[in-house]
């Protein structure tokens, strides 16, 4: 993927910092800022001075304070220090080369004394997430005119420029928000890149929230936390308000609607997912800061279930639901629980686990059963030290907030660990290598890359084939379909494995070829299939049962980086002795290489070839047998030349009889929906056709091509495939 890195000096867009950069964009209407009352925003009176933090004040309260001071008689003669803008919030650099989203968290509500950021790579018509960094502890120096924040960053990519120095001018609340400048350096002081970032928001993140309601359910609106004894100041909280206090702006999409069901309807996780896909206007199978919350009545898991984050297939954590069956009456206790459940379920969508399930995360953390957090269960509250636990103790002390570690995750976690549709639920930093395959945040390329795996649910040992399809919406030059095979390196494939690592697939055989471009457009597609089971670096990729997540990316001729959908394949464990034997035979290096090469006579792959022959002859009912026959058949249909140690060249001639016999079995077993994928079937027939043509049998060659073409037409294959069979 991208080899440049954003912290090095050459990557900075503006080494001569101009404090006015972006000031226009950063400037906001003051009245608007005050009335929107962002709790983590720049209007916090706590400022950056050394006063002890004050309780949170609303913007109206800030204004009232200012007004009350200015109305005092002595105000006319004694200068009144105007409140300064808080530095905390979100800043953004211009979209040139690398764009930085910078989060500064040093003042305002519950300051965590951290910095964090996400880099986006701008290339051609695409803007793609590059990586994230976090400074866990900072040193803050404040002068009357400047705030300076310094610390060492953890990054998702390798860099020596890890020391961040952020400077932000201090201004009053009546002045436009100033930009923040970040200068990177190595620990020994070598200067790196500098980014000037305009102020964007007082919130560290902004999330679009869409709420739908099942007919008959009154969706939660707000709760006054002073209605019942609690541990925090009394205030009126909505779900969005609870997140605003955490520094996350929840923006209502305005597209919520009522979902009509029967009065006795019972939801399942599958029906919830279907409802999300059908009703969530922002739904896409991609990572995005957008989330769906359904207010529903009841779930099949029982009346005790108050809510669930059901979205745990594909790209996860995009939707959740709360159930009102037992808490629908509008009592204070019920409203409190509704607030709790809704905020809690959305917390799961931010990839937060229960306080008492942290040990089940990847990587695990110690459980925190004494946490006074949205993510605990009140009845599980166990503060320890002999202090009373349980629901009554929890509610009596609960300040309606996340705990500090959760707050740090939500505000400053690496992007894929937090964003909806990012890493799977519970997975933290284990997938950082996949960052280069993140969804573009902006894509006007007119290209789409789609991938799918065949077979649907392979048993361990069955070769995994990836169908890669480039769809060209806007007329432009793209690579010819054959060059979309990963071996040409214009397409890369990343596989997240159940063992927790990510493999960026390195095909054992690479083709260095001049780009062969074709003019395409109008929604035409270029599909290709590729065996991706064996890798030059890690060997067998799919060698454990479990779920694998796969994405691909394509570098278009204009430099645009097109990222595919994410797809999953679940490798089933062998359930029979036969299946286990097939897995043992095919999950070796030699068998993987023999499959990659579509068979070989090489003595160095003799064991692998024997394995294929054994699977083809002795395990004919196993799905892997067709792939073994495919490789053996194609190898038989072509001559094999070997250079001996004495320099002599020995050629094994084509065995078209054996080749056709084996390939016919593959083709005939795959004409319907079973067997190997369609593209592989056409490839087998075309290969055999070429072999007959090579032997001068033009009639047979034509007949095989015609068979392939008719089959492709019957399956409505795109023009690019039909043309390849002419």
């Amino acid at each position: 993927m991208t080899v440049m890195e954003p912290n090095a000096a050459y990557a900075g867009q503006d080494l001569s910092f101009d404090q006015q950069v972006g000031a226009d964009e950063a400037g906001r209407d003051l009245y608007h800022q005050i009335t929107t009352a962002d709790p983590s925003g720049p209007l916090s009176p706590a400022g950056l001075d050394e006063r002890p933090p004050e309780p949170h004040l609303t913007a109206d309260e800030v204004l009232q304070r200012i007004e009350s001071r200015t109305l005092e008689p002595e105000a006319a003669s004694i200068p009144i220090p105007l409140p300064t803008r808080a530095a905390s919030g979100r800043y953004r650099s211009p979209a040139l080369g690398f764009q930085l989203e910078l989060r500064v968290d040093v003042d305002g509500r519950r300051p965590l004394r951290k910095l964090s950021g996400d880099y986006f790579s701008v290339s051609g018509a695409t803007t793609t997430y590059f990586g994230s960094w976090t400074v866990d502890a900072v040193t803050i120096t404040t002068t009357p005119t400047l705030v300076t924040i310094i610390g060492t960053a953890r990054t998702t990519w390798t860099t020596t420029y890890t020391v961040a120095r952020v400077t932000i001018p201090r201004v009053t609340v009546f002045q436009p928000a100033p930009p923040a400048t970040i200068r990177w350096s190595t620990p020994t002081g070598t200067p790196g890149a500098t980014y000037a970032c305009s102020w964007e928001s007082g919130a560290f993140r902004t999330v679009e929230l869409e709420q739908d309601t099942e007919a008959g359910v009154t969706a939660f609106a707000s709760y006054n936390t002073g209605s019942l004894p609690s541990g925090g100041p009394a205030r009126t909280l909505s779900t969005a308000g609870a997140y605003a206090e955490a520094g996350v702006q929840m923006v209502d999409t305005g597209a919520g609607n009522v979902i009509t069901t029967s009065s006795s309807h019972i939801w399942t996780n599958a029906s919830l997912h279907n409802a999300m896909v059908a009703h969530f206007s922002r739904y896409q199978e991609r990572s995005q800061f957008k989330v769906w919350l359904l207010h529903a009545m009841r779930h099949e898991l029982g009346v005790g279930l108050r809510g669930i984050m059901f979205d745990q297939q594909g790209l996860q954590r995009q939707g959740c639901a709360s159930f009102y069956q037992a808490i629908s009456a509008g009592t204070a206790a019920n409203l409190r629980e509704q607030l709790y459940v809704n905020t809690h379920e959305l917390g799961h969508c931010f990839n937060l686990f229960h306080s008492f399930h942290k040990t089940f995360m990847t990587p695990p953390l110690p459980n925190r059963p004494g946490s006074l957090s949205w993510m605990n269960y009140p009845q599980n509250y166990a503060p320890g030290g002999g202090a009373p636990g349980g629901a009554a103790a929890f509610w009596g002390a609960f300040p309606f907030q996340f705990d500090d570690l959760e707050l740090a995750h939500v505000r400053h976690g690496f992007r894929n660990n937090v964003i909806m549709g990012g890493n799977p639920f519970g997975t933290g930093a284990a997938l950082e290598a996949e960052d280069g395959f993140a969804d573009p945040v902006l894509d006007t390329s007119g290209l789409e890359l789609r991938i799918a795996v065949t077979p649907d649910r392979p048993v361990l040992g069955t070769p995994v084939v990836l169908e890669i399809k480039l769809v060209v919406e806007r007329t432009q030059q793209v690579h010819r379909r054959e060059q979309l095979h990963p071996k040409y390196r214009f397409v890369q494939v990343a596989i997240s494995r159940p063992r927790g690592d990510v493999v960026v697939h390195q095909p054992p055989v690479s083709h260095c070829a001049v780009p062969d471009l074709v003019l395409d457009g109008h929604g035409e597609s270029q599909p290709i299939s590729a065996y991706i089971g064996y890798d030059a670096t890690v060997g067998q990729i799919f060698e454990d049962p479990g779920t694998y997540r796969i994405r691909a990316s394509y570098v278009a001729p204009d430099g645009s980086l097109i990222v595919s959908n994410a797809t999953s394949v679940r490798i089933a464990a062998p359930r029979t002795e036969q299946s286990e034997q097939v897995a043992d035979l095919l999950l070796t290096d030699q068998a993987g290489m023999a499959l990659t090469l579509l068979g070989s006579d090489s003595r160095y792959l003799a064991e692998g070839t024997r394995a294929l022959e054994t699977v083809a002859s002795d395990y004919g009912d196993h799905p892997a047998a067709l792939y073994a026959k495919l490789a053996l058949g194609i190898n038989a249909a072509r001559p094999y030349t070997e250079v001996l140690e004495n320099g002599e060249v020995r050629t094994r001639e084509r065995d078209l009889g054996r080749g056709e016999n084996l390939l016919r079995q593959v083709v005939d077993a795959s004409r319907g929906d079973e067997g190997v994928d369609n593209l592989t079937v056409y490839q087998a027939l075309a290969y055999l056709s070429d072999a007959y043509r090579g032997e001068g049998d033009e009639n047979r060659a034509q007949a095989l091509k015609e068979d392939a073409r008719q089959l492709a037409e019957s399956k409505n294959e795109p023009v690019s495939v039909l043309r390849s069979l002419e």
Partner: protein
Amino acid sequence: MTGQLEVELGTGFADDDVAVYLDGTEVWRRGGVTTNYSVGLADVVRIPAAAAGTLEVRVRDKARSRRIEPGAHRLRVDLDPSGAPRMGDAPEGPVF
């Protein structure tokens, strides 16, 4: 008919085949059982309990059993880090 027996399959399940037996007779079996950590549950098995008997849960070639008295019961089975099932009464309180 003396009540319903419910067995919560809780934490630790990951694509497991789970079978539940009552007095040696298989009454429930499912593959691909996986814990949803947003609720700490993989599934809830509901069995009409006719009378007293022995309930056994088998997973990953290990088993755990418990004598059940007549009446309504809600039990919970979690897998410990070694994959062994632990069985006890299901905790009270809402789940979310």
